[in-house]
């Protein structure tokens, strides 16, 4: 039995400290992902908190056949979707560094961040699939589970996303259309 499964069992039994240890390494990763999906840094933090609370509350429903990270991201994706549906500010409308939390967090970088372009040209689900694949190194199968999509959908859309991003990388002008 791995350490993760032992922590999961302890957390299921009601140990908050075991759960805190379990999710410790995921918190920053979740915040980074949710930051790309939320309209403000505060919203992203709230989404991380909501995700972890929901994960702790419904830990009994976790199936050990899944990777824990897949299950956790599935909850995070739902929280992000819920937040976005409630939020009146569209992320695409946040064009300046002050307003856009993602731009704010990469402002120190001297080169353009491809995830900013990805957010502009990919739709929500395709962006998430791309993130899980390239930022989280998830397998196609895990991405499909996290997004509740078929493996074929994931493969096809990851390929299309790559092409769209390659085009975006090579493009000199800024005129673009939303992909997906």
């Amino acid at each position: 039995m791995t350490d993760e499964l032992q922590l999961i069992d302890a957390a299921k039994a009601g140990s908050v400290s075991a759960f805190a240890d379990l999710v410790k390494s995921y918190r920053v990763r979740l915040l980074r992902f949710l930051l790309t999906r939320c309209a403000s840094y505060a919203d992203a933090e709230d989404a991380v908190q909501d995700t972890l609370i929901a994960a702790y509350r419904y830990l009994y429903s976790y199936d050990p056949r899944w990777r824990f990270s897949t299950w956790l991201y599935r909850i995070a994706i739902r929280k992000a979707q819920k937040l976005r549906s409630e939020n009146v500010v569209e992320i695409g409308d946040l064009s300046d560094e002050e307003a856009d939390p993602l731009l704010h967090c990469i402002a120190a970088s001297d080169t353009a961040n491809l995830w900013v372009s990805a957010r502009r040209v990919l739709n929500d689900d395709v962006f998430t699939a791309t993130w899980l694949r390239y930022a989280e190194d998830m397998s196609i199968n895990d991405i499909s589970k996290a997004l509740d999509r078929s493996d074929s959908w994931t493969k096809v859309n990851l390929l299309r996303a790559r092409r769209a991003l390659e085009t975006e990388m090579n493009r000199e002008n800024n005129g673009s259309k939303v992909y997906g």
Partner: protein
Amino acid sequence: MDKIAKQLKDDAARIDVQISDELDRRILASLQGVTPEIPATDTARQRPATFWWASSLTGVAAALLIVAMINSQSQTETVPALAPEISPVIVATIPTIDWKAESAMLTRPLQQELEDLQEDLKKAEEKVKREIGL
């Protein structure tokens, strides 16, 4: 790892975020106030062993009661009156009909089979009429 995959991975790592102490405290405080849900199936498993014995015994008792009730009803049931015998005089006046018509083999189309059957029926009628003197 190809160029685009590498750039996506590097760019994701360059998104500068950190869990603040305030957020950390907030998360811990929230978790302390949450009770993990227990699946509904667990409550079924937590029933005492005597529950299943009691259920089984109740079922057996109910079955025995039903059997006993049915048996007691059949014992008290009155014997039905015999049907009145048919007078031998009437029986003698009714001619016996000797049905010797053979059934047609259904090997041909249905319309033809029907015609054959009707013909058989007609012959049988004529035979009956001859026998009873009509």
